[in-house]
């Protein structure tokens, strides 16, 4: 195990060292102590290494992650796993705004709650939140899956494209062009798989599915009010 203490080592050095790892031989896991809200911890990783962060991370933790597995044993600030391409990011506490923003792939798990704009503009990532998500979550979500075991705030899935949303609890209200859709066998199977991968104790049957009504795909003056 490589141990880095951010109380004495700058984030710059940690990231430089992580960026120099070999893809075929990423080596032993890393433990990062004293996160204390520092920004950009473990961002831009591109090898299958495991990084365990102790304490609360600041903004953009694991930003643009590829292949790596990052655990935050605490909360994460704005934009955790933003633009992730692959790999896994697991926040054991809660996440601030824009968690998983614009991410293309991989899995983001949040054990606590996520704040506003969770999964904003998501482009293929799978996000599983065991708690609740804030308003404007899945705003302009293009692809991927957002699973919320708790409640969802206002304007869920506003302006959504083809991403899928599953919510077990209450939805405060739905955003523009986002509607409830029937749960099909394939959805239950997909959801079960996602919940398993996230280690979430929830039954797929308890969830409802939401997605695009596809009324905004071509501009039509009769829908002008929706813009």
């Amino acid at each position, binding site marked *: 195990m490589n141990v880095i203490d951010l109380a004495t080592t700058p984030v710059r050095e940690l990231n430089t060292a992580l960026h120099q790892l070999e893809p075929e031989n990423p080596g032993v896991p890393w433990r990062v102590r004293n996160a*204390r*809200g520092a920004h950009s911890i473990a961002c831009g990783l591109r090898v299958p290494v495991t990084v365990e962060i102790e304490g*609360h991370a600041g903004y953009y933790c694991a930003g643009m992650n590829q292949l790596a597995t990052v655990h935050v044993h605490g909360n994460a*600030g704005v934009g955790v796993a933003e633009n992730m391409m692959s790999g896994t990011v697991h926040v054991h506490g809660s996440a601030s705004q824009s968690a998983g923003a614009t991410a293309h792939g991989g899995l983001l798990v949040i054990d606590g709650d996520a704040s506003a704009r969770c999964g904003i503009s998501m482009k293929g990532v799978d996000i599983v939140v065991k708690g609740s998500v*804030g308003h404007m979550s899945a705003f302009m979500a293009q692809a991927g899956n957002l699973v919320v075991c708790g409640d969802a705030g206002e304007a869920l899935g506003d302006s959504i494209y083809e991403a899928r949303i599953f919510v077990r609890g209450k939805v405060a209200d739905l955003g523009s062009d986002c509607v409830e859709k029937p749960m099909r066998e394939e959805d239950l199977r997909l959801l079960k798989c996602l919940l398993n991968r996230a280690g979430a104790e929830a039954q797929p049957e308890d969830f409802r599915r939401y997605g695009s009504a596809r009324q905004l795909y071509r501009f039509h003056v009769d829908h002008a009010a929706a813009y």
Partner: protein
Amino acid sequence: MCGIVGLFLKNPALQPSLGGYFATMLDCLSSRGPDSAGFAIYGAEAPSGMLKLVAQHPQEGFDWVKVAAELALVIGFAPGLQVIATHARFTVAAEEAELREWFATQYPVLTVMSVGRSMEIMKEVGAPAAVLKRFGVAAMSGTHAIGHTRMATESAVTTAGSHPFSTGQDLCLVHNGSLSNHNRLRRELQRQGLVFHTENDSEVAAAYLSWRLRDGASLEAALTSALDDLDGFYTFTIGTRDGFAVLRDPIACKPAVMAETDDYVAMGSEYRALTGLPDIERARVWEPEPATVYTWNTRSAAREAVLA
């Protein structure tokens, strides 16, 4: 754009350390606001029947003793006086209106920063670390404090343009964000008799609260109606005589993090600013909801959230 912080002590034993913790919090957010810094400290209350007035002169070394002597002739006895860098604190038995009038006519070169029973506002242009050192903030004590590090957006970097803005006795505001309808609102408030010294949007927010409170609204009601009347992006932290309040606009793009233990409630634009607080590892850390008024005060020492 900026960094804002607030610290409210529930445990009186921590009061001598207020300045130390607060200075660390504010210094941490220099990255968000390198241009200037300001703060409001709620320290020892003025003796009964008296007020604290803090004034500022552009340069250090101003003859404050002369000001105090002249003021003494008007009000009948010598005010308490303490000089701190470019500012001076007067402790006087007089009405606020009378004091402000006197300073405005006799010493227009001075800026009255604050008037209150316990609140003292100080602010200066310069890197936050330098400002904190100049004023000896780390050694200050009190019950609560709010502060601000400034990256000026649409107005100039001046002392007057720095936050906190005082909206009334013991009442002040710091703001992270950018309002979009403050110019029209300023003209409206001017018609209602409020006076402005800057082009700053935050000053308009502060004046709006003053106006609502002057009309008899409670702080909670004033903040609730602010959600309708102020347009734009904002996280506000407000200092009151015995507590503080936090409000985020409905879109809530600007950050806000809270931390609470049995000993304190703290607020900061980034979690980083809170990491120097005692027992932060075990604090309850959360983010305030948008469009929701949060208030804390010494009387109840409990959180009252009023859903808008």
